[in-house]
């Protein structure tokens, strides 16, 4: 089977000898082009590790990640990352943060004027045109994350990787940005891999939800296909029986079959 992105039997062990800890055991996942995949699980189950391996920020112990026919061995602009805490460079303005990524990615393929235009276009897409010359410390947390998303999208990645992108935001801002991400993804048709611990977020945004078992040696417990038509409307979904069924499925997985190890101990 050849899929766009394949995570092939990935194992990951940190450390060596007696202190070694096995974080991932035989994680195997195949993603089609344009799919929106969420990875959900309790804290410490290694879901961020999976994302970092796909990003190339971590190496696999055994197994491999193959994207569009090529093996992933190091980070690169074809797999841009939206980090949980935005990770904007505080000494650069909003525009320059995105321009850094654009200039680096499209140095040989776009002219300086085209690159400048593209920066403005992506920032417009996330609704940040009004703050081009502001520094990150002058804008709110939600706005920073918008810029983080713009920076990642501006690189036109093959896969957009999001590591709990809305985790640090308040509920209202989070809902707002989720809607934006849904809209942008339906416009651009990106392939997205998102790590989250928010059940509603996973069901609302995803085509498939990958549910991870608890660590150590975590693996994929179950994959839930979300067969709801897109675009999805947050309010309509609240009363949608199917939606609530999916939601309950995920909750059952997380809280019955793979209880949080901490709550079990208590």
């Amino acid at each position, binding site marked *: 089977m050849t899929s766009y992105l394949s995570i092939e039997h990935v194992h990951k062990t*940190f450390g060596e000898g007696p202190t070694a800890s096995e974080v991932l055991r035989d994680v195997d996942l195949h993603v089609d082009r344009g799919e929106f995949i969420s990875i959900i699980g309790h804290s410490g189950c290694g879901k961020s590790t999976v994302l970092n391996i796909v990003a190339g920020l971590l190496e696999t112990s055994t197994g491999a990640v193959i994207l569009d026919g090529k093996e992933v061995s190091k980070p690169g602009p074809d797999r841009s*990352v939206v980090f*949980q805490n935005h990770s904007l460079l505080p000494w650069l303005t909003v525009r320059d943060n995105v321009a850094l990524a654009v200039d680096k990615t499209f140095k040989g393929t776009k002219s300086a004027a085209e690159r400048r235009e593209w920066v403005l276009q992506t920032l417009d897409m996330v609704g940040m045109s009004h703050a081009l010359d502001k520094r990150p410390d002058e804008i709110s947390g939600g706005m920073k994350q918008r810029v983080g998303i713009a920076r990642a999208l501006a690189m036109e990645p093959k896969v957009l990787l999001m590591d709990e992108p809305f985790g640090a935001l308040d509920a209202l*801002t989070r809902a707002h940005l989720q809607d934006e991400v849904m809209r942008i993804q339906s416009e651009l048709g990106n392939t997205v891999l998102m790590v989250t611990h928010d059940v509603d977020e996973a069901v609302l945004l995803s085509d498939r939800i990958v549910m991870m078992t608890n660590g150590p040696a975590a693996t994929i417990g179950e994959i839930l296909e979300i067969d709801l038509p897109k675009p999805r409307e947050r309010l309509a979904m609240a009363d949608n029986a199917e939606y609530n069924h999916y939601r309950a499925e995920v909750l059952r997985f997380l809280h019955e079959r793979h209880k949080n190890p901490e709550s079990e101990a208590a």
Partner: protein
Amino acid sequence: MMSAIIDRTMTFGAGRERPAVRETSTAPVARQTAPPARSGGVPADPGVWSRRLRNSATVVLPPVIVTAFFLLLWEMMASSQGAVLPAPSQVITDTWELIINPFYDYGGNDVGMAWQLLASLERVAYGYALAVVAGIGLGVLVGQSTWAMRGLDPLFQVLRTVPPLAWLPISLAAFQASNPSAIFVIFITAIWPIIINTSVGIRNISQDYVNVARVLRLNGLEYFTKIMLPAAAPYVFSGLRIGIGLAWLAIVAAEMLIGGVGIGFFIWDAWNASMLSDIVLALVYVGLVGFFLDRLVAIVGKWVTRGTQAG
């Protein structure tokens, strides 16, 4: 290096919570709130000025009162029977010629206070500039390479405790001239805090920024200019600030020994001629110049690192 990256990456998700900041800008209306329009033409109400005056008075008054108190105390003690040191009033009368005429030049060492200070500042400028270049360079090396740190750090830790003047004889022997020796003493005094702070700044670069650089595939030079220097700048500048203070401390002592024009030798010369008032005046100038040097580096640092402290 690699293991350090993995260690830090392992803690992803944990301890990275940032305080949730409410977004205020999603509605375009929110950002169009103009500053409240002032009814034009009306002069600012007089209360503003009296309030400003009062505010500045609370800042200015305490140091003025305290200084005046100490001057008075000094005046009284130095005016008593058998006092050896001159009173402030005595200092001013004795040195009036020097104060009002800082730029005279009668040849040789007999030049005005401004020239003396400028000669010292010139030596400090050379020595400090060398220390900045070499110190940041070595700091980057030690901060980047664990091998270099293991090799160089013990050496640095020992050498930095050597008092500035202890370097003077050996540098006089090496350079065979007084001026380069003084500059070397400044250099070797100022360089340690710059090296140490720079390397700490580089070691403390947030893993987030390193990850951004890796995803963007920045090359060495791009990483150095776009990530490393700005991220380490606050640390570098605290090193620079300590460095300039130490350099100014060392120059006076060094100049006492090497002679020639310079505020240090001026003090020594005055002591040999028993002109205590000249020494007091020189001390005041040395203090003021040191204060301004420190402020200068602080201001430059604040300007350069604006924004970098943000999370």
